[in-house]
């Protein structure tokens, strides 16, 4: 394979790393938002739950921003085609996400119960909606999205908004929301005590079971689905446009990579193992271990989806031959090389100082402290 092809694959892997970072870190915070009204019945209980992720949500959210920037830099055609095609869904995602910073910063600034309750609903919406959209977007990748290109690669999306919210996409959305609730719940267990600990433990157990069921159901569903096969094209590491390939649809084709490379079955196995052991760990009140198991479950789920689709990134259901793949939608070799360099330096640095931030703020968040500290959310 050309060196360019190697960089394309490296960036495909890095995209996976960023998605896992997004799912684990942002998903955890969103899970806390989703369960906030259930876990906390009184204002103080809710404030404790919020302050557990209080020092970190802002940094975590950058995984989302970085995800957007990295797709732009490494796969510009995906950034351009997917985000404009998913327009209304993207608006829902952005509008609900921009409620979050304000929910955190503004909620506890006024004593009014109505004010706080409004922001709690805002945090619920901005926790649940983006995670459902995130999963649903992945679901749509398996089914293909109706778009095509003109001669100069202007993309046109021909589907409707509701078409993106079909039943398989919603199943994927619920899977992503369940894992997010699991991570949010164990995060609250990590930093909380007493009644909020018990409530989130219940939620963690329910959501891990739900995630297992949905992940399995999704697998069976995909098996009966028509998958896309790249039968001819310039291939890896060759500069090209999406106008030069032949794509066919075959039943069960999304399992082809697994059949070809048996070791890949470890990815779905990792997903299930993470969820099952996560369930057992929450049962045993080992919430820190459950958090790491949840992160493994995310790696398994995202890895499974990515490997099943490979080399496709955004299949076109209306003109399958114009489907976007790792080979035809990536940046040039020079850009990919520079960006690999930046990622290799900065991603470890980010992981290092994020860990330090968690270390500094380690320990339980007590209700007394939240009530007394003027900086608390």
């Amino acid at each position, binding site marked *: 394979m050309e060196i360019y092809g190697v960089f394309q694959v490296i960036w495909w892997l890095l995209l996976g790393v960023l998605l896992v970072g997004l799912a684990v870190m942002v998903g955890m915070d969103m899970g806390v938002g989703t369960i906030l009204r259930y876990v906390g019945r009184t204002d103080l209980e809710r404030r404790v739950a919020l302050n557990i992720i*209080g*020092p*970190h*949500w*802002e*940094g975590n*959210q*950058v995984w989302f*921003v*970085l995800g*957007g*920037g990295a*797709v*732009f*830099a*490494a796969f*510009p055609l995906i*950034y*351009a*085609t*997917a*985000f*404009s095609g998913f*327009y209304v869904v*993207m608006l829902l995602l*952005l*509008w609900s*996400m*921009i409620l*979050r*910073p*304000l929910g*955190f*910063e*503004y909620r506890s600034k006024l004593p009014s119960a109505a004010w706080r309750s409004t922001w709690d609903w805002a945090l619920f919406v901005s926790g649940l909606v983006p995670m459902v959209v995130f999963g649903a977007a992945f679901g749509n990748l398996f089914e293909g999205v109706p778009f095509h290109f003109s*001669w*100069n*690669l*202007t*993309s*046109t*999306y021909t589907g409707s908004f509701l078409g993106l919210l079909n039943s398989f996409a919603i199943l994927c959305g619920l899977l992503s929301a369940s894992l997010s609730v699991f991570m949010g719940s164990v995060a609250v267990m990590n930093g909380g005590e007493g009644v909020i600990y018990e409530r989130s433990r219940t939620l963690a157990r329910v959501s891990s079971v739900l995630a297992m069921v949905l992940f399995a159901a999704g697998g069976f569903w995909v098996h009966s689905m028509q998958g896309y096969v790249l039968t001819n094209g310039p291939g890896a590491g060759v500069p*090209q*446009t999406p*106008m030069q390939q032949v794509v066919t649809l075959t039943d069960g084709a999304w399992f082809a990579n697994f059949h070809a490379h048996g070791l890949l079955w470890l990815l779905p196995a990792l997903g299930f193992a993470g969820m099952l052991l996560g369930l057992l760990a929450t049962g045993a009140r080992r919430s820190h271990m459950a958090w790491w198991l949840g992160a493994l479950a995310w790696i398994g789920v995202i890895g499974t989806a990515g490997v099943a689709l490979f080399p496709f990134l955004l299949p076109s259901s209306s003109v399958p031959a114009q489907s976007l793949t790792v080979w035809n939608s990536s*940046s*040039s070799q*020079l*850009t990919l090389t*520079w*960006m690999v360099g*930046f990622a290799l330096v*900065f*991603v470890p640095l*980010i992981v290092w100082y*994020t860990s330090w*931030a968690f270390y*500094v*703020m380690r320990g339980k968040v007590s209700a007394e402290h939240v009530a007394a500290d*003027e900086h608390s959310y």
Partner: protein
Amino acid sequence: MHDITVVDLSRWQFATTALYHFLFVPLTLGLSFMLAAMETVYVTTGKQIYRDMAQFWGKLFLINFALGVATGLTMEFEFGTNWSFYSSFVGDIFGAPLAIEGLMAFFLEATFVGLMVFGWDRMRRGQHLAVTYMVAFGSNLSALWILIANSFMQAPEGAHFNPVTMRMELSSFSQLIFSHDAQAKFVHTSIAGYVTGAIFVAGISAWYMLRNRHTELARRSFRMAVLFGVLSTAGVITLGDALGFVGGQAQPTKLAAMEGLWKSEPAPMPFNLVAFPSQKDQVNHADVQVPYALSLLVTHSMDGTVPGFDKLEQQAVERIRNGIPAVEALQTLSSKPGDADALAQFRAHEKDLGFGFLVQRYSEDVSKATDAEISKAARDTIPQVAPIFWSFRAMVAMGLAMLAFFVLGVIYSLRNRIERKRWFLKFSVLMIPVPFLASEAGWLVAELGRQPWTVYQLLPTWMSASTHSVGYMIFSLAGFVGLYTMFIIAEMYLMVRAIRKGPEPPHAGDSDWDSGPVLGNSVTGQAEG
């Protein structure tokens, strides 16, 4: 084919969301360094008052920061959602600085802002100070990468068109990041943020002094702010001049619009101090001119000239004619990749490709473009002169006013007369909106002056937008306006409330503290022992 209404609505949406985002950015840039400066004094001298200052201004910083972050999320994705063709056409270059911004800057800023707020009691003083500096460096680095990206749109460097992939691609990373426009723009814009931070602190401190509240904290904050401000304003003006110099060479149509230059004139050229430019008649009405000044200002010499729109429009006609064969060649290459004749034709006309795209707005098949369509496209290369002309003058006037304000402020403050100059304190409060307006005016000059291009002379705005329906665009624009209006109301309310409430009561045994009457407090007016 693009619907021009959709393009216009997309422009409105981007302008609205970007200008709104930039209401919060300058204060973040400037206030973060002021917080770091205050905390540095606290750590080195151990005086509690400086910790109180850092914490109080830090609280206001966060209210502003939240909206800056929230509205920044929109920006990161809006290129893809609304400027789809732009994104795929230049994403190979433009995406890189955005991604690096996330990796290098935004992560730093956002991770440490949490520690800055929650970590006061969890770290040693020096550690917390380092954290505050990380927030300041992170936010300023963030501005650096975003402005590198923006500069690529203004004065594209380090890129070429690849006919195989049908898009612009990076040719030199160092040319991209060290472009002259990017350097001048970064310093000009980030220092404008420092000016904003300085006036914000000075204005609110003046408000406390007028009411005899928290006078110790206010006096010290005021002095720090005006010192920081006078240096910064001088820097903004110097770098603004440099940016005008660099940008004027790179973007002659923007410069001509800023100066209302319809006709080319021999050196030394006069400067239009006041004028009412008419787009239709291509003349200025009622103009007041300063002889020789324009040559001096924009070329830094007496015998320099810059072209007016008469020359520029004529050049555009020629470049459109030269660009048409480039577009035709690309159409051939799209269906027959590697066709040698088409490739040779493309190479011969490559430099005017963007101008060929310009006429495609009027004639989809460029080979059939008539003379009338070509002159219409050439006329399009003249941006809307009046708003650019006036935004530029408004920005400069506000910049000079702020310089005068800070000079007076420094004199009064260093002579310890500031609390007696009540007129000046009142004036300081009124100055608070000025730097925000000046920044917005600056962006209007930069981005309206870039029209009709998204990437100057490479990619026309009309081609860049996503192919949405008018209904979708009305829906999204209305949604943004509605949400953002609610946000600004909540933000202003909380900001004003936090300012009225003032700094938190001091820790026990703090002698620097002075208690004044607190608004809405039942003990107001009572004698206190």
